[in-house]
């Protein structure tokens, strides 16, 4: 029986622990300084917005851990000594391990902006950040305006949060159009429009120069590279995240931006592994980046590493890429790879359809020579993961996707369906004559 110690009680560490418990009798300890129990980071925004209480973000009831013999330690690991297999916590206590898993997640980026450590300047990553925001911006009387710096997923979430309390928000986005390093032009344009619809003061192509302090060391205004001075009480820094690994600097575990791991998620030190946001592959797997800071990949690494730790060595070998997000009221899902104009290769072409009035659109990426289906982005239409996963595996072409598009729809019953319009546009654009097939349960469940 091994003692498996996991630093970090996020999705990756907890998934790992659950799977190890299912597979074995190993002793399991999870250490975290953030919260006593696992909670869903992705749901932090809903607590501030009043959709949920913090306890609702905890996927397991508090008795779950004891019942499954998973020991929880609330503490901050300051030192890791792989030679003696020993951890030192902030309070001076030590813990020894047989196998160590580093699952310490990320922290918000700070790019050395003047004033970035003033009061009222904060990121949004941890439970503590949420509590801080509650203090900094409880309502629009105390916070007359907030400026958010960085146009990514967390930035737009933070804007939505503040708007839910009617706090005026200015949103500084470095790119010429929102998230256009990832989204295609049509999509990004639609989201720009939607952001404005929510009365968010969107400033594209604008960088933060400096945050100005008042006499009490609180942020009072920001200065942009356009020379604008924007008065505000709160500054949200949401320009991406970096692996949270500073405490490992002296551990002689090989580090890059993250903890370097191989396909078995092993670090350079024996019996030390890393998963989730903080793990960095030596080389990106397929079109993936070496560091994948998303929920799903953390979970998948946990699932895979559990096998390895229970004597069933498994590479981390993720399947087809998928992801999702929500931009204010618009849901977004993606299956396979759709690259933005800024990052796509020449062979990748796009077919784009957008609803004339509603905030609904899709983009399908395909290989220009073979017409092979590469991926899809959908906004305002839900699609079936299983179906696209299967089409990607079977290397279907776009004609096939168009023909059977109805099988993929996952919108609630009675929703208006747009397959016919999409296929019409496709036929017109490519001078084809695709006929939509009716939805078939048999095809949908052919994998089940």
């Amino acid at each position, binding site marked *: 029986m091994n003692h498996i110690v996991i630093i970090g009680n996020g*999705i990756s560490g907890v998934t790992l622990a659950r*799977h190890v418990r*299912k597979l074995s009798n190993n002793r399991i300890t999870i250490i975290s300084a953030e919260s006593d129990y696992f909670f*869903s980071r*992705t*749901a932090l925004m*809903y607590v501030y*917005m*009043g*959709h*949920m*209480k913090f306890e*609702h*973000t*905890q*996927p397991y*009831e508090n008795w779950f851990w004891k019942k499954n013999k998973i020991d929880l330690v609330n503490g901050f690991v300051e030192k890791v000594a792989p030679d003696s297999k020993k951890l030192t916590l902030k309070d001076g206590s030590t813990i020894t391990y047989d196998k160590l898993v580093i699952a310490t997640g990320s922290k918000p980026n700070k790019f050395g902006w003047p004033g970035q450590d003033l009061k009222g300047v904060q990121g949004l990553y941890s439970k503590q950040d949420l509590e801080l925001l509650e203090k900094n911006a409880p309502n629009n009387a105390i916070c007359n305006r907030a400026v958010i710096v960085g146009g990514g997923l967390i930035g737009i979430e933070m804007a939505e949060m503040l708007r*839910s309390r009617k706090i005026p928000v200015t949103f500084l986005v470095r790119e010429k159009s929102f998230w256009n390093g990832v989204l295609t032009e049509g999509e990004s344009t639609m989201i720009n429009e*939607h952001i404005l*619809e*929510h009365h968010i003061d969107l400033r594209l192509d604008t960088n933060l120069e400096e945050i100005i302090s008042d006499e009490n060391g609180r942020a009072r205004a920001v200065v942009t590279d356009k020379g604008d001075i924007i008065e505000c009480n709160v500054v949200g820094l949401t320009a991406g995240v970096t692996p949270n690994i500073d405490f490992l600097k002296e551990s002689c575990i090989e580090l890059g931006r993250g903890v370097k791991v191989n396909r078995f998620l092993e670090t350079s030190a024996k019996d030390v592994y890393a998963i989730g946001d903080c793990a960095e592959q030596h080389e990106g797997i397929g079109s993936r980046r070496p560091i994948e800071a998303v*929920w*799903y990949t953390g*979970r*998948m690494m946990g*699932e*895979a590493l559990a*096998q390895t730790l229970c004597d069933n060595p*498994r*590479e*981390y*070998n*993720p*399947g*087809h890429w*998928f992801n*999702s997000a*929500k931009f*204010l*009221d618009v*849901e977004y*899902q993606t299956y396979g790879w759709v690259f933005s104009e800024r990052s796509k290769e020449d062979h990748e072409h796009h077919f784009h359809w957008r609803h004339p009035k509603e905030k609904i659109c899709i983009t399908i990426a395909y290989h220009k020579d073979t017409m092979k289906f590469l991926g899809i982005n959908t906004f305002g239409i*839900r*699609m*079936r*993961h*299983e179906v696209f*996963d299967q089409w990607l*595996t079977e290397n279907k072409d776009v004609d096939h996707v168009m023909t059977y598009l109805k099988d993929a729809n*996952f919108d*609630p*019953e*009675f*929703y*208006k369906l747009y397959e016919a319009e999409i296929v019409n546009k496709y036929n017109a654009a490519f001078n084809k004559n695709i006929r939509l097939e009716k939805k078939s*349960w*048999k095809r*949908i*469940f052919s994998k*089940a």
Partner: protein
Amino acid sequence: MKVLQNIGIVIFLVGLSTFAALPLLGTFKVDKTIVQEIVSDNSIKSELFIQDLETKIQDKEFNGIQSLSPIIVSALANANATHRKNKEYKKVIYTKGRDMAGSIAKKSGVGFIAENKGLMWFLTFGLGIIGALLFIVPQVVLLGPKGIKNDGIYHQSSTNKGWIAWLVFIFLVSFYLVLYFRPEYATNWTYLVDPISESLSGNPAGHWFVYGFMYCIVMSVMAVRMYIKYRNNIYQVVRTTSVLFFQIVFAFLIPEIMVRLQMPYYDFKNAFPLDYDFFFQWNLKTLLDSGGIGIFILFWGIILTLVIVPVMVYFFGKRWYCSWVCGCGGLAETLGDPYRQHSDKSLFAWKVERWLIHGVLLFAVVMTGMTLYSFFSETGTVLGIKTQSVQNVYSLAVGSIFAGVIGTGFYPIFGNRVWCRFGCPLAAYLGFVQRFKSRFRITTNGGQCISCGNCSTYCEQGIDVRAYAQKGENIVRSSCVGCGVCSAVCPRGVLKLENGPEKGRINSKDVLLGNDVNLMDLVNKK
């Protein structure tokens, strides 16, 4: 807009306060003809009681029912006690004291309230409706672009068990207590709706008519709120329209019109065992005595429970009844929607649920068995237990207290489906079918769940939806009423209510879609 809403609140509160004050107001004058009518209508043979009525209330004026009712109740009790002592059983009056007080009061109301029914209707129902709509309709603008609008639910007193919620709780519970246990205090309310009742059934309104009418009004007004709040989600819009239709037409209008046509009062959608007194002796007698239509109803009632209900559950899940048709569900999905998040999601609550709801089902079945046995063998007891007493216990404990006082009164505290989740025997029965033989499920969309918990939080039935979704597993639970709100609030498009082949309906998984295919195969094969 905000101003409009505030005006709405004031108007609504004026209407509500007037309504709430009515039970204690009003003047009642019992003249001689009323006493005579009461005596003949109820074929009262107790000269003691008649004498009491003549000396104590006849030709007197009473201010407020509270000064009249106790006299009648005690007179009746005294008369009955004396008759029982003297073994004059023929003279015993079987009408309950409070019902007697109610029928005397109903005939003897004089003064402003009884004489200005239309105006009083406006000052109560009218202002209530106008005020509520003034509050609700501006949300078309205030809520902003369409989408899920749950902002602030856990910050507001009304929806986060604050003092407003407790006031609503006290009001609702008191209202049900009056209805069930002090019906004579509802007399003034009945005046307000007399004109409506007379135009429908030809009879003046009783307190159950008040309840039925109010039910429809409350549902309609709150349906407007649903339409606005969920205008992004057509499933919610259609479903709300459906429950509203069945409430107004089937539960309210048709039964009243049937009475006008000299037919038995019957709600064609109210299935046994929710309709627990369907097989009670008095009901069977009424049905058998009312000719063709009575026999048809008897037949329909049996077919409804034994064939229609389970077959529909097989094809569509129990939602077709519980959140599309049923009156209890209808109120829960309209008036109760702001409170849906209060259902308890713990495993413990689920255990309690299973014991309670199946216990009630068992109770209902045993009681009905006894009832039918008594009916056919014409005895009053089964194995030494009085059928009547069992029926009384059920009617009081389950029919009134559980379904009414707790079921609806506790909305603001325990959530809007307490009765449907813990008590309804029909739901328990449908649940069996849904769990073991149905095409309905909530499909989980591969690996897309981010465990955020919105679905579980807003499940009115206390199902921990996330527990399934985050494992990539479909949700197949007997208690699911298919309201569709989990699917609506999910920010990642993970959940879809659908009817499909039974094969693969329950798909337990450990490793989710998106990971290594071989690993998924290895771990998920059972």
